[in-house]
């Protein structure tokens, strides 16, 4: 450093921060900042009012006994210990996990298979048709779909059993046996939700460069091997996103089992969110419902964290 170079004067600071220069450009930025806050305000307000405050309230409520009518009483960890010991809650969590595993595997498997099929071997007009058709169930109300499905799967008068009877299969007690009802709940859920994963996979497939397939072909890869060694690895980021979203959604399943089977027969289709609803709005045990909600949230967070941690091994970015 030359000795003739004058020492650089440090800018004056006010309370440890550089004073902003009062320039027309600075005023513009400030104006833009205000505009940004104005646009963000509804979302921040909504998030605060309808997400953050309920979350905090729910965590607090988990330590109280409250039936809406009487004043809440502090019970410490009693709600958590009661919930953990409650066989119905335990079964519902087990059901939820089984449901998540089966439904998510089916949902992603079907979505991926159909996405590959539609993306590869379809004329454009048919591709557009299938994209719309597969996405269509997602925009329907889960409750109305479930009511409709109840009629379809009715053992005595349902259309499904009528079709089965045409090929000599006796009436299946779809909604009145544990196995049958669980099957129907999963089928209806997967039918209604695979369209979302399907669209994600379509997007993912479109982003895979054609050159990669051409290179694989030159290396002698045939159709199935191409998918195994090119499509699946390059689709892994999409698969990660699709699986995270599918798992979170499946962990919160409520409408289909509630309307189709009311959790029965027995507890065979009772899910964690159903138990939260029943505790809070049918039995008026808001503290216990909150405790179950907190546990479910912790499980969702743990699973999601595990997915992202595992993804480091299995997800490949181009």
């Amino acid at each position, binding site marked *: 450093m030359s000795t003739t170079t004058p020492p650089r004067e440090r800018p004056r600071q006010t309370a440890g921060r550089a004073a902003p220069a009062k320039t027309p450009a600075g005023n513009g930025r400030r104006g833009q900042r205000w505009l940004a806050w104005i646009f963000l305000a509804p979302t921040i307000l909504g998030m605060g009012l309808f997400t953050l405050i309920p979350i905090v309230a729910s965590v607090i409520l988990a330590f109280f006994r409250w039936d*809406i009518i009487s004043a809440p009483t502090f019970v410490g960890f009693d709600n958590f210990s009661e919930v953990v010991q409650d066989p119905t809650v335990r079964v519902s969590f087990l059901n939820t996990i089984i449901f998540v595993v089966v439904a998510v595997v089916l949902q992603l498997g079907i979505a991926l298979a159909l996405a590959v099929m539609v993306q590869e071997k379809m004329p454009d007009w048919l591709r557009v048709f299938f994209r719309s058709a597969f996405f269509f169930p997602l925009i329907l109300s889960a409750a109305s779909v479930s009511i409709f499905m109840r009629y379809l799967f009715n053992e005595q008068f349902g259309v499904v059993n009528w079709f089965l009877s045409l090929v000599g299969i006796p009436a299946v007690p779809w909604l009145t046996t544990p196995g049958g009802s669980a099957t129907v709940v999963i089928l209806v859920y997967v039918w209604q939700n695979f369209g979302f994963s399907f669209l994600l996979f379509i997007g993912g497939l479109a982003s895979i460069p054609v050159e990669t397939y051409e290179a694989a072909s030159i290396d002698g890869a045939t159709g199935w091997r191409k998918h195994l060694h090119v499509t699946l690895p390059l689709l892994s980021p999409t698969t990660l996103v699709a699986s995270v979203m599918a798992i979170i959604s499946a962990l919160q399943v409520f409408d289909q089992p509630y309307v189709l089977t009311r959790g029965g027969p*027995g507890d065979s289709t009772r899910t964690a969110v159903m138990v939260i609803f029943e505790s809070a709005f049918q039995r008026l*045990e808001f503290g216990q419902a909150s405790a179950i909600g907190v546990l479910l949230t912790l499980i969702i967070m743990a699973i999601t964290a595990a997915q992202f941690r595992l993804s480091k091994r299995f997800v490949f970015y181009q």
Partner: protein
Amino acid sequence: MTGAFNGPLREFSRRTALGALGAGIIGATVASWPRLSGTDIPGRGDNSLSIAIMGTAADAAARQRAIDAFTRLHPEIRVKVQAIQAVDWKDFFTKILTMVAAGTPPDVVYVATEGAQLFAEKLAHPLDEYVRRDASDMVEFFNDVHPSLVEAFMYKGSLYQLPLDWNAANMYYNTTAFAQAGLERPADDWTHIDFRNSLAAMRKARTADFTPYYWTNRLFGGVVPWLYANDTSFLKETRSTGGDWLWDSFYANDPSRSLRSGGYQWLEPNADDDRVFESFDYLRGLVKDGLGVRPEEGGGSSLVGLFASNRIGTTPAGGYWVQGLHEAGMGGNNFDVQFFPRWKTQRHQFGTAGYAIMKTAKDKDAAWEWIKFSSSREAMELIFPSPITTPARRSMVNEQLYAGKGPAHWKTFYETLDRFPTTGPIPAPPQQAAVETALMKNVSLTVSGDESQLKQALASMQRDLELALRRQS
């Protein structure tokens, strides 16, 4: 042409667009403020008597004639009816409780047996003082109403509601299906064996697309009538002391006076009772032999259509079904009703409903005036002009109500109470929601497997009921 459009469009700046958007948002907010703030809810923000009923806006409108008649009598009391849509009574009570939590409870609520003790325990104001005060006015009502219905609204010695309508679980049968099977009208004292034989005959006559016995999985009309007929229940039934003030005043000369109490109590589970097992085993046999459908989860919304299209032979239901069958195209001779089959007893199950005054009601005296008026013959005829239910007043269950609609033996409805005075209400303690869940979730399992599964399901029901009753006791 294009230029004409482009000119003004170019002048439509971003600032103008944002301004228009802002003005639009403010305008929409102002316009919808009554909805956003809830001030459009009937009775909110003024001193009207706010009355909540389960139903649609059309149901609320149907009460308007009664409101008009009431207003003529009491011009000083403004009444507003709020119809709350709900899947079932449990759902309706949840919505009322939510209104309570929100600090906007109605003053008066139409409550069925399912919620009577929940309201009596936590929300409702007893009617005792009013009934005593206006005893001379009330004599005529109690003379016309069976004491079993009144007793269903007694709780720990106090009266909380006046029964306005009710329904017993009688047995409806399809006369066409009976005729095809060569069956006559069953005897009044037919037994559960006779009933099973009738189902078998119908099954033999029609092998396909037909269910001899259709039943649903719920507190009313599901398994409970069979338990009552077998002189048991899934909850131990006891009675409170007290209530003599009412029975001695209004039913002193009633032949069933000695049976009356301060109200029903269901304090302990009873699913491990041998007769409960026996009753479930009977139903399991019907299902196994293809005579009865497995009970559908939830209600029986499809039932009217199936019955009206001759695909169901028998089903338990109350007088509320007559109008529905009529509207579904059934003639008065196409169906009929008989008492529920006898087993150890021929005790029936019933449910009733009436208005309850909320503890938080702004003006309880006005609320009582509405209840008293609603129990009058004039008001009940305005509210129940057709057989959508069974009126609590015996004098209203008459030829005129069922004319052109049937059934031929409509007298069965009210005679159920007269012939079987021990006939009891739906077992609904204050923890009804938890109890109903415990019952419903195990019923399907009891009837869809073998005997060991039945025992397991009843053990599970016993455990769930214990938990349900203990939790909120």
